[in-house]
């Protein structure tokens, strides 16, 4: 591993997310300081320079996502102020109807581009923890997950103005049954109506809270103890493949489960598969029915705080990585059913299966982020041990550590082959 660059000071407060654009030539950063910055890479020397900088939200910005460039230069930001905003970069001179973001008035930026606030999505009733644009072949859509346990899917109705976003799905992730049942009977039994779903979500999150308080959390990584915001929805990741339709992996609560939810225009969202370590998925399903289970011997609950669906790149299976508070990085191999064409009738959905193909506890502390490279061959995981670790599959398809970087000073730091001066960006 070698260090190739450094932005010495990105924001005036802790950074909350950093996101590369489609090409990796730009970087959007956001922070507790409520601002978003967009940086541009100078490929000739590897330096990053600020292109735009503006106050984006009324609270800390939690996450950023770039839309596919075929829709233009569009960024979505989610925030602790319970909103998601959609921003578009316009070149100077193009006068939109909305005013340029406020930053430019306070402190003129060197660039001539302006990021216009095109839409504010206000449906969330809690911190919006993550936002991610759908793969481009599904159109201009985005998914959000928030501490109110809701997964929301928005669809842009007017691509030219970007101002009109329709909330096309709203799913209470905890209340959604963990497994899709083959028989319509049990679906009717398990699927609550829209109104009761909202009630369920409230009770479920109380359950979650009770669980959280009764059990010693893993490590000391739970500063939000007793805070309602501490649980709820954590993470989302879209399936990048077009073939299987709109699928999204979602992590919510402290059940340690990732639900793969199928979004389809003709049907209500349903769980296609729940990734859980337990042999019987039902026991992990947190729904209103499991309230009693909370008192029984439940394994130490933990939140899966990061999920990453690997680009499938022609593989016959999917790889989904999770990073969780129990200190584990896991890679799941998820396979659509082989005999999906058995019957096409009602409830004849192909049965998906998932199994853990790698389970690493090297971080020994909560794992905050997992992410794949563009071909799904290298996984990176970042943990509270202050290290980012890489993982690759060997020729025998066994996942192995493939290097790491850390912020702790090493013994031979002085000898480290780092050429700092050239890469420092003073800002």
């Amino acid at each position, binding site marked *: *591993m070698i260090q190739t660059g450094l932005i010495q000071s990105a924001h005036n407060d802790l950074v909350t997310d950093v996101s590369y654009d489609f090409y990796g030539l730009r970087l959007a950063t956001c922070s507790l300081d409520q601002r978003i910055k967009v940086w541009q890479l100078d490929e000739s020397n590897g330096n990053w320079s600020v292109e735009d900088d503006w106050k984006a939200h009324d609270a800390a910005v939690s996450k950023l996502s770039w839309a596919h460039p*075929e829709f233009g230069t569009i960024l979505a930001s989610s925030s602790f102020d319970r909103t998601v905003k959609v921003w578009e970069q316009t070149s100077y001179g193009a006068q939109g109807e909305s005013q340029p973001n406020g930053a430019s008035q306070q402190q003129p930026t060197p660039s001539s581009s302006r990021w216009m606030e095109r839409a504010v999505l206000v449906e969330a009733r809690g*911190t919006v923890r993550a936002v991610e644009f759908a793969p481009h072949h599904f159109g201009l859509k985005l998914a959000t997950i928030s501490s109110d346990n809701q997964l929301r899917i928005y669809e842009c109705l007017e691509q030219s103005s970007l101002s009109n976003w329709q909330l096309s799905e709203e799913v209470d992730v905890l209340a959604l049954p963990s497994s899709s049942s083959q028989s319509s009977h049990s679906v009717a039994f398990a699927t609550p109506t829209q109104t009761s779903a909202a009630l369920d979500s409230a009770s479920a999150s109380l359950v979650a809270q009770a669980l959280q308080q009764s059990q010693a959390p893993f490590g000391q990584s739970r500063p939000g103890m007793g805070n309602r915001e501490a649980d709820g929805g954590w993470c989302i990741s879209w399936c990048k493949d077009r073939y299987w339709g709109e699928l999204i992996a979602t992590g919510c609560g402290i059940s340690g489960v990732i639900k793969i939810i199928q979004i389809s225009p003709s049907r209500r969202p349903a769980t296609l598969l729940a990734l859980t370590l337990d042999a019987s998925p039902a026991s992990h399903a947190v729904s209103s029915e499991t309230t009693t289970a909370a008192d029984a011997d439940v394994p130490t609950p933990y939140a899966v705080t990061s999920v990453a669906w690997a680009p499938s790149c022609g593989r016959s299976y999917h790889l989904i990585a999770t990073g969780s508070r129990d200190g584990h990085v896991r890679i799941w191999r998820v396979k659509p059913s082989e005999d999906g064409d058995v019957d096409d009738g009602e409830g004849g959905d192909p049965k998906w299966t998932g199994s853990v193909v790698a389970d690493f506890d090297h971080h020994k502390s909560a794992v905050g982020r997992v992410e794949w490279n563009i071909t799904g061959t290298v996984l990176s995981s970042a943990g509270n041990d202050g290290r980012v670790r890489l993982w690759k599959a060997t*020729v025998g398809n066994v996942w192995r550590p493939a290097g790491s970087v850390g912020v702790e000073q090493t013994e*031979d730091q002085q000898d480290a082959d780092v050429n700092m001066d050239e890469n420092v960006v003073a800002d």
Partner: protein
Amino acid sequence: MNVTGHLGLFPPLVPPGHAGDFLQSGRVLLSTTSPLNDTLAVFAAANVPGVQSSQHTAVYSSDDQPIFFASSEVTPSSERRLFIGDTSIIFAALQNLTNTARARGPEWLQNEEGQRMIRKLAMDYINFTKECWIHASQAPSQPEGSPQFSDDHYRSLYACLSLFAVLYVPEYGFEDAPVGDDLMEWLNIHFIEPSTEEGDHLSGLERPWQDETFWPYLLRATLRGLSKAATFFIGTLSRHSSADLRRLSGQVSPLLSSQPRLQNFSTERDFAYASHRWKDKIKTLRIEMDGVPEADRQDEFDNWWDRLSDLIGILEGRGEVIQKVCEDLGADWKEVCVAWGVFTDTRLRRQDLPDIVARILEEMPPDPTNPEDMMHAALFNGDPARALIHAAHIDPWLGAHLADMMEVLSLIEIEANEESGLSLRNHYVLSYAQYLHSDPALWRITVAYMFSCGEIGIRSADEVLARVPMGLRRTGDKLIGSGEKTTEGTSNLTDLARVVKDVNATCYEYQREEVRRVVCRIAAQIFVQEKEYGLALSYCSSAEDWPGLGRVVDRVLEEYIDAGPDQFTHYVASIAPSLQAVRTQPGAQGIFIHRLIFAVRYAEFHQRLKNQDLYDAAADLMSMFQEDLVPKSWWGAILCEAVTLIQHNAVLLFSYASACILLQRLEEVFTRADQGSGDDYLRVLMAKSKGSTLQDALTRLQATRLALAKYFARCAMIGTGGKQIAERRFSVGV
């Protein structure tokens, strides 16, 4: 390329051994991977959820929020790029060969022509790595400093490839020939022993046998089949004090230089016969040696007899002697194995080698810390798959290219791994492509390797192709892009067009239509932002993205609203030529084309208006309405613009019928406005006069109504359809 290593980022955030402090400070570490080159961006983040920034500002300095960038690969330097580029040509040639083989049937590769071609390509790789080695070893004198990879690295590649060729890609017809001499040649080229310096040193001495390096040198030279050097120093013993040694050395000399070599014989039978005769002579010599009394076997320095006995033992081919000598000399298993093929079993075949090697390796294992040694051992041992593991460790380049050849030669499993879906070859080739991806400039080569790896490779290549950087964007007056900075916007766009063209061509070559369309759609977006509407339009139509085409036209029409007719006609001039092309394209969807036609016609109308060509302008206006080209949202705006033509004093520009049509349209707008859908008809008119309300717009239209009323009055005075009304046929079309 220490991929499994750990890197401490600089500047470190916590002192050694205090990783826990980091978390205590309310921070966590997060990272994200760059699609450009897999660079990691690592940053200290707030430990969500819900920590207020005030809670931890005391712990760290607020003006220090670094983002670190780290990569597991070193971006290839110029000399390495050259190596990558040139060897990719050989790789492509081998691809062609396998494709040909696929067409001609698998047995074609097994026949003479196929085998010769494979060997030729293997030789190409070898020669090329040799060149690189020579080049790199001269590099330190170059001004740009030492190369990224040491000369030893290329030497290692050269040695590994050469050994592979000796063992697995023999000349056609020689597959079943004894391999000893070939291996000895390989060993002597790549692992030179004894050194020339030692020889020079000894040859300068009056009594070299008194030097402690004398016998080791002589034994090594013998072991390596270096008969000239060995004979020379054996010759010096003629001055030795021992009469026995003088006599014996005189007999050894001719034997050393007369050892039969396969290459000097036309048939193996003759060679075997000669070898047998030669061995007999050695036996005679051994009997004579044994006759030397114990007491006479020592000179003042050494027991010369033991040493000479070792030498004779080597020539006799005694395995235990060879191994002992090698151990004494510090030589490794390779030397024992090679000597075995030259002295012990002169007819050793390639297929018999693993048995011998396995036995030797048990007692003299290879160095596990040296991947090159491990790789040689695996090749000697007849285990190509294992050799690949070590090869990839030395350099992903070596793993990929060896695996590629091995598959063609059926040395490794062709079937895909059930779990990963990748064959051995594809795994290694994709690993190499992964490495190449660390350098975005190498995208052509990256995808070429990927495209050779089945469905998984193809789809991986798609991801890379779609992301070939073309995002050269304007940033104020400054343009930032991969090339040199320019202040000229157009050259920047030319660059962009060139990249898009390149990617397009590559997509065509590999038949990746879907990716090509994505790239075209993105290009169209960028061109729209740059107001290059003509290019944007042609990329939309190339991607068959009709809704996208519609949006481009909308943007052009907006130019009219924002900037007025002059700008508008200027922009339309750039899109008009594509209209014809788009119209002829099958599958082009009507509604969007319709809008394009309107834009073009509308621009023409304005052009005529500007040129005071009022007859034609009026005709244009009418035909646009009659052909239903005008989108509803434009009706208000166009009816408003018609006023000047209607009020034209000199002549009446519209026929009575035409004026009626205008009136009809006008009435429709008013009626609809009454019904509450005025927005649909007046949107553009309202946008044009910025900030005006629906009511303002309707008021403006009243002017048109009044003008039309007057017009009808004039018509009535002159007489309907009177002579002064232009009797023109409306020219339709563009």
